[in-house]
């Protein structure tokens, strides 16, 4: 039973539809609650969530005893299970932490101890011979390494999309293009003002990522300031995929995890990220210096990589703060939970964070009653380790559109494009369609298919020509 009684408002408003916000919304959708997610952008997962290294972290190098370490550990089995159930592309090739000088080599023991303290098992030192046996194309000069078997790679867009779709399917409302302007405590319920109209909610969860400090201030606190840290990344052609088998990590510093080379679940190879402090929270441009720096590092880590074509470059901002740890605070009297400072482990920790936040809400007095029924979701296969539609004889026999490849580089079929456009959380821009299907994100960057895809969008009446948004659909309407 959904409470309707006297109040017309929501029980919980989650601010922010990044991976953390929608993971919390999904967790809340398991209970008899009226929940709404308020998102400033026109799609889920468009901030820090979409532009990162897509590494699934074990947390081996997190600060022991930190909330980050605890929630990464808690999230690990939850995400493994959830990905298997919903079809989120997730692979566990393991990582090799590579030491390139004596100082780094000396740190490996401490890192192995740290991993143990963090409850991360299957961490082993790797001698230099074994290192080159495992990664024959590793650049010259490596002195030794540490193998972390549990490190993995995942799809950074299917993950929030799965959470959001499951939340939506189970009654959560998701309001897009609804940035929060003000929050008034009108005694009993909060009145949250957005350009799409006012929203009443009893509880507020702040998962606003790069803007979480703004929201925290709207709630009357001054606990942290987001200091965006930009990460530029270079994606190499799928033909580079055989060059590397594990995630090649540098020895981390206090500031950053450093520049890595990793396979992606789409079969590419990724190089990055840079770590640059920037003032502007929308500074997601790449720079000549940043890209040159990455290419130079890539050349020493995996020289053969630079013989391959670059498929894409992009940049994202991590929501770092002046604090090293997550900024998760529960203010019982205010009926408010702040989830800030999730800098670079949000994708990996999201399910642990969500479980923890819901516990905090319950402890603070939110009444939780398991919903009588709950629907799971299954996401379309976009990962190379999955049975992609173009290779699926049965799928093509059922729907011949799965046999018509429209995006040749990423092998995205017309059936998948139409499926994404008809899904519960349909994209409203061509970028949204690209993120859901990978169409146009391959090596030709739309030389062959961009017009065909745009034409398909037109055909479907979405009229989401670049830069213009389609009219809001029913699902977006606030209340």
């Amino acid at each position: 039973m959904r409470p309707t009684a006297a109040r017309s408002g929501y029980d919980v408003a989650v601010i922010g539809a990044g991976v953390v916000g929608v993971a919390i919304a999904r967790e809340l959708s398991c209970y008899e609650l009226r929940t709404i997610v308020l998102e400033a952008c026109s799609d889920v997962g468009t901030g820090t969530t979409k532009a990162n290294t897509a590494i699934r972290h074990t947390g081996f190098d997190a600060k022991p005893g930190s909330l980050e370490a605890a929630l990464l550990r808690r999230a690990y089995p939850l995400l493994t299970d959830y990905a298997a159930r919903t079809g989120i592309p997730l692979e566990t090739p393991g990582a090799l932490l590579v030491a390139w000088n004596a100082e780094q080599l000396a740190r490996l023991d401490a890192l192995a101890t740290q991993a143990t303290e963090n409850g991360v098992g299957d961490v082993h030192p790797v001698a230099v011979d074994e290192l080159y046996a495992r990664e024959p194309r590793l650049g010259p000069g490596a002195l030794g390494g540490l193998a972390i078997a549990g490190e993995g790679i995942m799809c950074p867009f299917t993950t929030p999309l799965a959470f959001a779709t499951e939340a939506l399917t189970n009654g959560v409302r998701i309001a897009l293009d609804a940035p929060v302007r003000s929050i008034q405590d009108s005694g009993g319920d909060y009145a949250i003002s957005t350009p799409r109209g006012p929203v009443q909610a009893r509880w507020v969860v702040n998962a606003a990522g790069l803007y979480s400090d703004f929201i925290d201030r709207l709630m009357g606190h001054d606990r942290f300031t987001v200091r965006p840290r930009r990460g530029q990344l270079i994606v190499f052609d799928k033909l580079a995929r055989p060059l590397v088998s594990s995630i090649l990590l540098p020895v981390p510093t206090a500031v950053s995890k450093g520049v890595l080379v990793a396979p992606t679940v789409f079969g590419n190879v990724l190089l990055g990220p840079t770590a640059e402090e920037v003032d502007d929270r929308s500074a997601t441009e790449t720079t000549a210096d940043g890209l040159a720096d990455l290419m130079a590092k890539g050349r020493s880590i995996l020289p053969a990589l630079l013989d391959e074509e670059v498929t894409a470059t992009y940049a994202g901002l991590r929501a770092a703060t002046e604090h090293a740890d997550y900024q998760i605070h529960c203010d019982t009297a205010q009926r408010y939970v702040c989830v800030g400072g999730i800098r670079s482990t949000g994708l990996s920790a999201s399910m642990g964070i969500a479980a923890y936040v819901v516990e905090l809400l319950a402890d603070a007095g939110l009444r939780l009653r398991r919903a009588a029924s709950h629907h799971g979701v299954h996401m379309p296969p976009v990962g190379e380790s999955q049975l992609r539609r173009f290779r699926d004889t049965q799928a093509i026999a059922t729907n011949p559109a799965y046999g018509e490849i429209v995006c040749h580089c990423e092998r995205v079929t017309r059936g998948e494009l139409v499926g994404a456009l008809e899904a519960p959380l349909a994209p409203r821009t061509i970028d949204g369609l690209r993120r859901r299907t990978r169409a146009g994100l391959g090596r030709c960057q739309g030389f062959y298919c961009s017009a065909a895809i745009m034409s398909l969008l037109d055909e479907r009446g979405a009229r989401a020509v670049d830069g213009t948004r389609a009219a809001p659909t029913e699902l977006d309407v606030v209340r």
Partner: protein
Amino acid sequence: MEPVPRRPSWTWSGDLVTMRPAPGLAVGPDRPVDVLIVGGGPAGLAAAVELRRHLATVAVVERERSLGGIPRHTRHSGYGLRDLHRVMSGPEYAERYATLAERASVQLHVSTTATDWSPDGGIVTTSPSGIVRWAPRAVLLATGCRERPRAARLVPGDRPSGVLTTGSLQQFADLFHLPVGARAVVVGAEHVSFSAIHTLTAHGVAVAAVVTDQPRTQTYAVLRTLTAARHRVPVYTSTDVVAVHGTERVSAVELADRRSGAHWSIACDTVVFTGGWVPDYELARRRPVAMAGPHPSVDQWLRTSSPGVFAAGNLVHAAETADVAALGGRQAARSIARYLADGSWPGPGIDIVPSDPILWAQPSRLTSNSERPTRGRLLMRVGRFLGPGTLELMQAGHVLHAAYHWRLVPNRSISVASASLAAADLGGGPVALVWHARR
């Protein structure tokens, strides 16, 4: 086709790299055919038509919905000169070849993508009618080439919409009749760049500037002059695009002059990156066949390193005009016909190895002194403006050929008569292709 031994022959990054097998590939029974041609553009279709004269059964698989390749969306004239001996527009030319192939009873399969090789050396395709494993006696790769997009050129800045290549621009404008923009900057000043200008102006898009990192434009003077006179397009030479700006849509490009170091911006809503040809070598490299730079290595009769596998068109010379690609297709057809008749396959032969500033040469291997390559030419490209100087073919210290050139232009077709290779020793070392600037 006979099972083909996989020689460790790929030299792209110095050693053999094998792609991991795709999971769950389910296929039906093998479909036999004499020749399977991958790619229904000028080279593939010309080869198919020619092969039918030799009574072979031929299937063409084309991944697009219609046949004809790139000329389908290049509206300007000038197609067909060398191969069909008449001049027509790109779409007419594409149509003409589709008709010729149909009349020649070629099995034509559109919306059909060759996704990989089967373990026994055949080709696997996906189409709306299902997944098919082809068992051809010979394969011709005619997958063409594409332009290098902005990302691969590492042009930094924002990632707004409105960043195109000539290929996507022409598909938007001429194939799908979608709006393009109002004011464009064209990056590149070679033949295809002027084709992009033609498309833009024909659709009412103002061309704000043409930008090239080279010191001069690289197209024919007459084309350049006509364009300048008709459209009054300013051309910036020795200039790099150093950033793209804009949030949702392009708002400006930032340029830098290589000589003065000056930076300035030009307001525009569209940027078209032209040229920078990359052969579509994925299938070739998945086999893998030996590579010569970005192209599959082919001999004078367009044989790859893998017996039974041939390559032609802009896959082996990115990019020549469509008629040259078609003539290469015909040449490959004659070569395939002989292979079907006697099963003979030459030894590895000798490589023709270009050195900087020469980017590539085609054929890149020589396995016979008597077989004449397409049009009797050794094709090549240079990376920058050169001249005066001498182009030399050398083997083991002996000069096989030397020719004085007053000027060589990058992005323009350059050739040497293949007769100059007649004296090459097939048992000797590689033939070096070198440039000597005149002091």
